């Protein structure tokens, strides 16, 4: 009956990240912040971000989560930090899972692994939505440049809804 190899996923990298998560903490007065939780296990993650020049200039996370959640959150922040908005919009679950050798994670644990990605994408569309309004009422050409269509935001929302 046992699915076997449960413990395999707890390799050194995961354990290390869970003990020393990367980019763990809060940003004072961040450009955008988002919170979500998994109702079944009680994991809960906040992500704070600063965005300048269409780039994730800083990102930190905090909250409570299991080792899988902590490791994936760490990897997510490492992957996205310093990247352009365009690049991070393309980050998907395979990028996170692949980095940690979790491609074959069981369905129940997928939520642990992807909670932070969900929060990240939510933070992103929150930022873009706000930014779009701003750019509508300002004459800043850089902002107009970065402005995103509302379809793009809807697409992100859908992606979040379909994540797990």
């Amino acid at each position, binding site marked *: 009956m*046992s*699915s076997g190899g*449960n*413990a395999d*996923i*707890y390799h050194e990298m995961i*354990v290390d990240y*869970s*003990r*020393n*998560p990367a980019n*763990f*903490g*809060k940003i004072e007065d961040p450009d955008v912040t988002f919170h979500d939780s998994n109702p*079944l*296990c*009680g*994991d*809960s993650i906040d992500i704070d971000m600063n965005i300048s020049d269409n780039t994730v200039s800083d990102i*930190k996370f*905090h909250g*409570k*989560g*299991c*080792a*899988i*959640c*902590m490791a994936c959150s760490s990897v997510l922040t490492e992957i996205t930090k310093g990247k352009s908005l365009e690049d991070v919009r393309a980050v998907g679950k395979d990028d996170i899972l692949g980095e940690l050798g979790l491609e074959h994670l069981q369905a129940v*644990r997928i939520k*642990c692994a992807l909670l932070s990605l969900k929060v990240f994408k939510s933070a992103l569309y929150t930022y873009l939505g706000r930014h779009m309004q701003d750019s509508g009422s300002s004459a800043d050409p850089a902002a107009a440049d970065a402005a995103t269509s509302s379809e793009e935001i809807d697409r992100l929302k859908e992606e979040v809804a379909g994540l797990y």
Partner: protein
Amino acid sequence: MIDAIGDYYRTYNANTHRAVYALAEEATEAYEAVRDKVAKFVNVKDRQEIIFVRGTTEAINLVAYAWGRGHVKPGDIIVTTEYEHHSNIVPWQLVAEERGAVLEYVRIDDNGELILDDLDRLLGTGRVRLVAFSLMSNVLGTITDADAIISKCKAADVPTLVDGAQAVPHMPVDIASLGCDFFAFSGHKMLGPTGIGILWASKRMLGEMVPFHGGGDMIREVHKYESTWNDLPYKFEAGTPNIADVIGLGAAIDYLERIGMKNVRSHEVLLTKYALEKLSAVPDLKIYGPKDASRRGGVISFNFQSVHPHDVAYIIDEAGVALRSGHHCAQVLMEKLDVAATSRASFYLYNTTSEIDALVESLDAVAQKFAVRGKKEEDGAVK
């Protein structure tokens, strides 16, 4: 239990109550015989007070709708406790909000036992309409001092609802001598099937209650513009009942009675004592709830200071003792304990001390893997 359900479908699968023919009669008899069994098992004198529902959750919601909405008034207080299951909190939040009442909590002390002074204080307001509490915490294992609570409530003329979901499977329960007004429990926690549970309520309370679900079997006469209700308990059992699972529950009760609930309880006390002792030796492990096995049941919740219970459960899936990690549907308690989740071991009549040894061994392995002795630097710190 499985045999009883299979038998039902193979032989007397027919709707209860409705038809004349022989199959239906056997189904009805088997179904009603379980009502008697349940009554005897928890010492209820009057079989009409035993209502079959899906589980504890539905039982408590039934009370919240069919009694609560008619009796809770604006400004009233409903009292529950910090160690309740969501099913004994959320229905009262919903009633309270709808009726403009408030929900208040009896807190727990560091030992995981209720602080009954809180109850005295609340009853002192004269505004308490109901006190709802579980007889045994499904997380801490604490056995509630029900006699003390119920006698205080009786003195204040306040009805009591007891959530017996965790207690009934694990210790002898005598509803008549408890003296509460409502009592709820679930089949699946006592070796019975999922999908069946029981609400017991006193005739007096049932008499004060409006119907909950409308439909077949709960009626006496239906006319276009008005209906009259069937006798108890059927007034509260609308629709095709979960016949097979009621019969399965009967088989589970037979089994438990053959063993004897006193024996179930004393076996668990032994296991719990043993487990508490062994678990205390695991490095860095915090154990919740009473330390005295005579004041608690055989569920033990614990946490490593620095390994998430989710990971613990996953890693030791092979240990042979059901270990669950999560909030155990007791998030108010988790908030109180200041954790997202706990690991919880449950002992029952079929468990042995060697399984406890296996559990402790795998916990030691987890501790080693995560090297819990060497604390990580950040340790909860937020930069």
